[in-house]
């Protein structure tokens, strides 16, 4: 199974990815995560306007055989949520790094990104 790990973003140990644009951070889960979960049936995303804390669970992703927490890679306020995932959770399986994006956080502490993994390090983690 090809493990897609795009170079242009950062990763968490819990298999979330984060793509930075100034103070905004877009969050999703990795190809490895959706592979492990199988067909996604339901996603519970954090509420728009709510606050999230780094590496604290802020949502839930459910497949037929498993339920996993979604951890916030950085702290801040949720300013955008991908509501198409309500009716089309399969987008996370089909395009985890593109159309399967989950939410956008306005970072309260941008220095937190230094604790996240770079692509080669994350790849090493999942290969292990």
């Amino acid at each position: 199974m090809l493990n897609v790990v795009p170079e242009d973003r950062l990763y968490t140990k819990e298999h979330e990815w984060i793509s930075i644009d100034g103070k905004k951070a877009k969050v999703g889960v990795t190809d490895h995560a959706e592979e492990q979960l199988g067909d996604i049936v339901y996603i519970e995303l954090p509420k728009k306007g709510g606050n999230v804390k780094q590496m604290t669970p802020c949502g839930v992703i459910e497949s037929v055989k498993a339920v996993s927490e979604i951890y916030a890679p950085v702290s801040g306020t949720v300013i955008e949520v991908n509501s198409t995932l309500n009716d089309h959770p399969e987008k996370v399986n089909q395009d985890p790094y593109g159309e399967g994006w989950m939410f956008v956080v306005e970072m309260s502490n941008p220095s937190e990104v230094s604790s996240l993994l770079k692509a080669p390090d994350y790849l090493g983690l999942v290969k292990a």
Partner: protein
Amino acid sequence: MIGATPSEIKQMLSAIGIGAIDELFSDIPEEVKLKKGLKVPPAMSEQELRRSFSELAKKNLALADQTSFLGAGVYRHDIPSAVKALISRGEFATAYTPYQAEASQGTLQSIYEFQTLICKLVGMDVANASHYDGATSLAEAALMALDITGKENLLVSRAVHPHYRQVVGTYFHGRNLPIKETPLFEGLTSTEEVEAYLSKNPTAALLVQYPNFLGLLEPLEALASICKKHGTLLVVAVVEPVALGLLKPPGERGASIVAGEGQSLGIPPSFGGPHVGFIATTKEYMRRIPGRLVGQTLDSKGKLAYTLTLQAREQHIRREKATSNVCTNQSLCAVANAIYLSLLGKEGFKEVSAQCYHKAHYAFRQWTKTGALKPLFNAPFYHEFVLRTPIKASEFMNLMEKEKILSGYPLTQDYPEFGDAILLTVTEVNRREEIDCFTRKLEEAPRLTREGCLHG
């Protein structure tokens, strides 16, 4: 009931490569191996079992052998013969949990029908595949409310069945969760007290019973609106679902969750179990509901099929993060409910429900007219009502028992504030003669005769 013959046992031992069965248990420490047989009674044949269990059964007095006005959460209703005939079928009774959908469409479709029937009955969008009983359903519904609202507080009406209140208490044992009991006003949950409490305390849920334990019809809309104002969920326990053949269901009156007991729907009193609980709720809370859910889907050829769904929330997958620890539901009892409701159908169920109401009100009028028993409350009731006894409740009931009449449930222990009072229940199986006989006994109270009410 052993399958193997002695010669087959020898063959299997040799196939395994051992000499004696004992070798199969060599990994059990010697010091704990039993050296003698268990001290249990010697084996009994079918004939001996029938004799000895019949003797035990005869030491009990069945309800059919007396006149019973006893309800209080377990109700006598006529059960169509087809219910027992159908659930006795080995294909239903000896099947396992339908984890392998292709091998279990019978159970799955029956439970889907049960879920649907419950939804229609209580006025909700989603019902689960049943629970141990009404009391544990209510406790699970309370847990659900805590989970949904994130608030750590419960308000429970004093007019909820005493056993149900106690079970809720046990489920929250050691959790440091305040469970406040609301006082009653004239037998009903006091809306003033509820408003006063909720306005000062963020509360996950208000638990009420409808009709309540005292037989009265709680003001659901008023309670729902108070709850909504304060972000509290209204959880309604329906202990007598037959009432809903006549009365507007809680789902249409502002309840967020309904927890119920299905014993009235085709299950005999059974000395308390197995009965069957259920939880029903709105679409919004579907994923928070504990226990199993059967859903409709398609098979690989596009044919309609049924399967357990949303299992990821359950214990066998989610483990410590599961919505609940429940594994078993009360499947066969739930199927009995579905069969009962479909045999009665819309008209039959409405008729049973109406007959209970009319007979109970006739009884109420006749019995209070004698002056021997006095009503305690004014509010409308369904088929149960509380009357004050002229002498100590226990003495009164003893006297009536000698006349072969079970005169309801004494409230002295659970509701000492009502003094000497009894909760009387009348259902469609109580004939007018039985009611009239009791009336006569009350009239003759100073001069009670020795005849029972069955032949009176």
